[in-house]
């Protein structure tokens, strides 16, 4: 078989694996939520509801169907982009998710941008100062940064910047219709709280990635061509060191979204994380299923893409195949 043929076979296998994992995740999710105690109809109708009223509502929501039918209806809908209607909110789940993403996505993006802007220069500086006091200090700070819980950072930021200085709102989100400025200002503290521990991790990765490339041949060649150590590092080292950094960054996207669940609750932001909380508290199982599958799907797909990208890029792997 040719190298290209084997490569496409490998890719096909990876993609098939991806689909199998996604389906398995959806089944696991459905089963777990199915045994969850708590009757959505009872939650919606409250303590005075009579049994016939509850039964009528369950029929209306399709909860009287057998599990297999409900699973197929749900997953079939999701496959064609129909996420169903929320039990409690009575609006299409897709629009509910879209509204909440309008908070969570900017939050995650701001956190990623912020952590990259902090971590990459700091990591490179530490590598350049390898073994000296500056390096030691940066590494120590990074250690502390990894150890600090992000919700505590959130609380401290509120204490300092909203209660103390009154610069930013302590929580809540005015909505984008209140103006981009007001919206962003509500997201600044949460994104900082989210970004700092991420920055610490990223700085460590950057530092070791740079240190690793410094030992490689082309840096030595560059230096032989008359570049100073620092020039060689910035011109050649950085670009190569960025590959692992970008990978980590990609893998951190779902982590950030998960971290947003906690932070959105600290800051009372109406994002995806808050939606999960509300949906669980109200047994809005359809919302819960959709959001959880969305998040899990994101992780599975990102991981799969990283895998596939490695298969395509990794020269050693190609050589072996050829």
């Amino acid at each position: 078989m040719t190298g290209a043929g084997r490569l496409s076979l490998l890719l096909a296998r990876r993609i098939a694996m991806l689909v199998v994992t996604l389906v398995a995740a959806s089944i696991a999710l459905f089963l777990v939520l199915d045994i969850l105690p708590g009757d959505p109809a009872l939650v919606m109708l409250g303590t005075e509801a009579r049994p016939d009223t509850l039964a009528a509502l369950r029929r209306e929501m399709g909860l009287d169907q057998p599990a297999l039918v409900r699973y197929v209806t749900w997953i079939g809908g999701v496959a064609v982009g129909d996420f169903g209607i929320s039990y409690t909110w009575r609006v299409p789940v897709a629009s509910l998710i879209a509204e909440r993403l309008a908070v969570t996505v900017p939050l995650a993006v701001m956190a990623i941008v912020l952590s990259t802007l902090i971590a990459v220069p700091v990591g490179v500086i530490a590598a350049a100062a390898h073994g000296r006091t500056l390096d030691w200090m940066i590494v120590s700070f990074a250690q502390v940064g990894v150890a600090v819980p992000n919700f505590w950072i959130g609380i401290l930021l509120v204490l300092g910047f909203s209660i103390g200085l009154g610069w930013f709102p302590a929580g809540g989100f005015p909505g984008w219709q209140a103006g981009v400025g007001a919206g962003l200002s509500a997201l600044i503290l949460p994104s900082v709280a989210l970004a700092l521990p991420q920055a610490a991790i990223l700085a460590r990765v950057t530092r070791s990635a740079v240190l690793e490339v410094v030992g490689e041949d082309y840096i030595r060649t560059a230096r032989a061509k008359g570049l100073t150590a620092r020039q060689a590092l910035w011109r050649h080292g950085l670009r190569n060191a960025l590959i692992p950094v970008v990978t980590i960054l990609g893998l951190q996207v779902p982590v950030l979204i998960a971290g947003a669940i906690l932070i959105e609750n600290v800051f009372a932001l109406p994002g995806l994380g808050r939606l999960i909380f509300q949906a669980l508290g109200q047994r809005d199982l359809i919302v819960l299923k959709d959001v959880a599958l969305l998040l899990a799907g994101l992780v599975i797909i990102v991981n799969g893409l990283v895998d596939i990208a490695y298969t395509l890029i990794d020269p050693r792997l190609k050589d072996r195949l050829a």
Partner: protein
Amino acid sequence: MKRVLAAVVVAGLAAVAWPSAVGAQARDQLVLGMQLEPPHLDPTAGAAGAIREVTYANLFEGLTRLDRRGQVQPQLAERWTISPDGLSYRFSLRAGVRFHDGTPFDSASVKFTLERAMAPDSTNAQKQLFEPIASIETPDPLTVVITLKRPTASFLYNLAWGDAVMMAPGSVATNRERPIGTGPFRFDSRTPGDRVVLVKNPDHRDAATIALNRVVFRFISDPQAQVAALRAGDVDAFPNLGPAEAVDGFRRDARFTVAIGNTEGETILALNNSKAPFTDVRVRRAIAHAIDKGAVIDGAMSGTAKPIGSHFSPNHPAYVDLTSRYPYNPAEARRLLAEAGVRDLRVTLRLPPPAYARRSGEIIAAMLADVGITATIEAVEFPRWLETVFRNADFDMTIIAHTEPMDINIYGRPTYYFRYQNHARLQAIMDEVERTGDEAARNRLYGDAQRLLSEDAVNVFLFQLPKIGVWNARLEGLWENSPLQANDVTGVRWRN
């Protein structure tokens, strides 16, 4: 990337400089804060109190309504006559009333609304309100005659609930998203997770006396953010503020009016009366003596709540003060427990999510420990509480506020979750109440019921859930108490 950050920083700083612009509203607009967001806006299709807190008296109207003192007043029914046997109610409807979409309101709308609520496939959360109805006749467009199965003294009161508001056949299907009522305010828009906006209905009969043109209901669940929004002027009024501990700060601030009133929420430490040793009245009394209500109110509610001694709201004229029946006395509690032969009692205390329950629970567990009762706290989410405690009565103790108005009759139900053993006697009193037309006589009967529950120490009656209202000092007309879940803004105006 740097440019993006610069843009973010600049935008952020700009936002910091602006917030006062948001606060300076035209004075015919009210921004009213609420803790919980309504899942949708149809009060006849869901139990969530937040639905009523937006729509009651503002957007939807019923045949009758409750005023700020909890008294029944005419609303869409202008007047009514009751037959001497108390079985037939003849309502004369207001003429010329139209729904917000132009549909005329008449006796057919009343018949439709009530029959929909009573129908087999009805999803009305308070279906029992309509249970006494035998038939509904509409002799002419402005007259409705309702015949009851048995005399029901509370019928007009029941019709005033948010679950009995009038709707048109053409809009019931969409009332959850775009509610169409007959009220003085129309639905304008909704931003899920954030706000619902109502605007004045110029065609309403009272339009001339309504001062507000626009009402924005904003939903802020985080206690810290509620306080901040009031301080910043982003919200003009929080009729039911979450954090009781913030009250002192607002009292010291002349920009705000603080009004602490009562809700209809009797907060109780419910005991499973069908489970030993709570079957023994001495044990229940011992627990009542073991709890220092003052300390619970201080610790859990920052001193804002009123203690109660039975399952009845101090708002009501029939209220009897029974708070001194079981004074805090750990020694007496231990003595009663010993007398009942109970030693080393271990129970679980199951707590639903609201802060009042979780905080009271922690304090009460500590107090019970003082008299030798080990109460293990189990925090549960609301769906689980409903399923285990409320539906299956699978619990020892729990803490919950019963927020339905005038709900002492729950003690007459044999299968109600706390399983009151003497339910038949209480039910007899309640039946007597429904048969009694005279208000003074009814109030005496309610007094008997309260004393019965107190003597039997069914549950430990802790405190009336307060309504902590904080609003701009220039606002007037907001309700101080809440005889039912509502934010009636029809009488609200800005003072100059």
